């Protein structure tokens, strides 16, 4: 191949001009808003008694096989240590000298979900009306970008299966047959069609409904007992761009595994602002500079080689 330095530089310059002249929007993507009928859950650590009825109900409603966990081969219990390919909902325990609290973990159904943004084929989607993040295995290629992108470490993979799927809470969307109706201030599905964990909870420690209703209820609880809840704050109201599953806790959220200081920007928003910096702010400046530097190194080495082999016949 005989591309001399002059023609190579010409090509590079041409590419830069072409990139610069292409009409590009200044911002690629606006953060998603709370959908009109966003459904979610509200979990209150002060009410949870750790009975794990929700774990049992979730398993059976979602037809998940038991996970013996640390008991291994004996298979006496369904004892997952964390969310996994067999577990969409789990109750954990936080314990130290000052606090003791149960913690329910499942998909947060983010207002602007990182997993759906990361999913290259649209297998994970946010329902435009209810905002529930659902998964369609038909398009999934198993890249697991959703797992890496999730700020709450929720999406899991069926590592033990030959044809694995992504596993995460879909707010029991598969159970819904009839429209939700408003009863006594809360949006309700007919019995047996709402999220299984909320339906079976004996203390209503986790309830479901529209996000605005739940937020109102959470604030009512905070107002009714000031000081009962950590920082008088509802986790999920604004965190990570807002989530549709909300938490009230008497323990600092960070101790329960919730990224307290995640900020108010959604993960996709953060990711896009980085990309924006690279590709849009000064169009292609950074890639051009990087490839330019690479080309410079290559040409310098080539020249050095040519100089060495100059004596060849």
């Amino acid at each position, binding site marked *: 191949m005989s591309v001399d330095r002059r023609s190579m530089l010409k090509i590079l310059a041409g590419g830069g001009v072409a990139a610069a002249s292409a009409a590009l929007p200044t911002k690629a993507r606006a953060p998603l808003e709370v959908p009109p009928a966003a459904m979610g859950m509200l979990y209150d650590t002060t009410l949870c008694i*750790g009975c*794990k009825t929700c*774990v*049992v109900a979730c398993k059976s409603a979602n037809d998940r096989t*038991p996970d*013996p*966990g640390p*008991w291994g081969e004996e*298979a*006496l*219990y*369904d*004892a*997952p*240590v*964390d969310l996994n390919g067999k577990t969409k909902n*789990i*109750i*954990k*325990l*936080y314990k130290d000298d000052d606090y003791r609290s*149960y*913690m329910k973990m499942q998909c947060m159904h983010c207002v602007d979900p990182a997993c759906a943004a990361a999913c290259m084929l649209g297998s994970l989607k946010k329902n435009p009306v209810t905002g529930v993040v659902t998964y369609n295995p038909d398009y999934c290629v198993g890249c697991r970008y959703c797992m890496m992108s999730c700020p709450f470490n929720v999406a899991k993979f069926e590592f033990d299966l030959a044809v694995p799927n992504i596993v995460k809470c879909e707010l029991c969307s598969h159970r819904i047959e009839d429209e939700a109706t408003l009863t006594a201030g809360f949006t309700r599905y007919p019995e047996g069609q709402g999220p299984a964990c909320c339906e079976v909870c004996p203390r209503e420690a986790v309830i479901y409904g529209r996000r605005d209703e739940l937020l109102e209820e959470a604030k009512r609880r905070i107002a009714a007992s000031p000081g009962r809840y950590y920082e008088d704050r509802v986790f999920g109201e604004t965190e990570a761009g807002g989530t549709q599953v909300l938490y009230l806790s008497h323990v600092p959220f960070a*101790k*329960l*595994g919730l990224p307290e200081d995640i900020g108010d920007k959604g993960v996709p928003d953060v990711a896009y602002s980085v990309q924006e910096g690279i590709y849009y702010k000064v169009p292609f400046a950074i890639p051009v500079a990087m490839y330019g530097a690479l080309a410079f190194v290559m040409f310098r080495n080539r020249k050095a080689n040519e100089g060495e082999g100059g004596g060849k*016949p």
Partner: protein
Amino acid sequence: MGRAELENWRETAESGNQLQRRDFIKAVTMAAAAVGLSSAAAMKVVEAASKGLKPSVIWLHFQECTGCTESLLRTSHPALSTLILDLVSLDYHETLSAAAGHQAEENLLATMEAHEGAYVCIVEGAIPTKDDGIYCKIAGKTALSLVKEVADRAGAVIAIGSCASFGGIPAADPNPTGAKGAPQVLEGKTVVTIPGCPANPYNLLGTVLQFVALGTLPALDEKGRPKFAYGRTIHEHCPRRAHFDAGRFAQEFGDEGHRQGYCLYKLGCKGPATHANCSTQHFGEVPGAWPIGIGHPCVGCTEQSLAFRVPIHTTVDIERPMPPDTYPPISADQGSVSAVASGVAGLVGGGLIGAGWAASKKLGGGDGAEGSSDKEE
């Protein structure tokens, strides 16, 4: 019902051959309640009985130990006398009948003719089928022909005990007589099976009472067992369940755990795979009188796949594992690598390093040769 009250009741039930109507109603209502029938249904039984409309019962004995009859003899509300004289008309029962020989046989034929299509046929014991069923004969007839004859003309067929339900002990390997349960012999006919070794008499009483009161049979599962009694596993209502959930097990008979009343699963308890109401309806209403209650693992006598097939002290799989009485921490240690996986990874990694070393040696040799030729030129 307290124990004293129970004793009281037993006395009146046993001494009272002159059973008052009030006592009779009480007996029927309690029996009905014990098996989940409403008091309205109980009143129907009382009415039917007072009109003399008692269903005729023919009780057949085949390959068995008579344990089911023996346990029925020990029920007390209603007492057996109430049951066989006031509630039903027990017209043929080889153990209990006063008649014998030809007289008994005549009674059987007369009953079948008089109550054709209405009598209840209760089968106790397995039916031998090998060599045309010659291994069990009554009055010159084989059990096989007898059960077909009686069941064909019956209004309802009930198999009591594990032997009649699925073969039980007579059908255990190597089954020399080709013993089978009543449902297998009477194909195409609805047979209510009340397995158990022996069967809890209340499950029979409930079935018979419903037939008497409403003329219907209880809802059955796919093995013909009444759902009111066999709908759930023993494990689900076991009084030792809390110990199971907490991981507290008796490891051997007589050890500290066994004395503390811990879970008997590791001693071979079949409770997690056995559908029966033993844990809620104790045997012959004596409190705690059932295997697990007295410290022995359940042997799974109501399950065809377990009873007399799986050794008594062999553990079974848990049908539907539930969470234990522990909690995972907020962030658990994840991703432990198994020995096999690390071995495979080691082999692959080692192979790659070896291949890389061999390749680099080859390349290095080539470069060296080129270099030397360059120098020569």
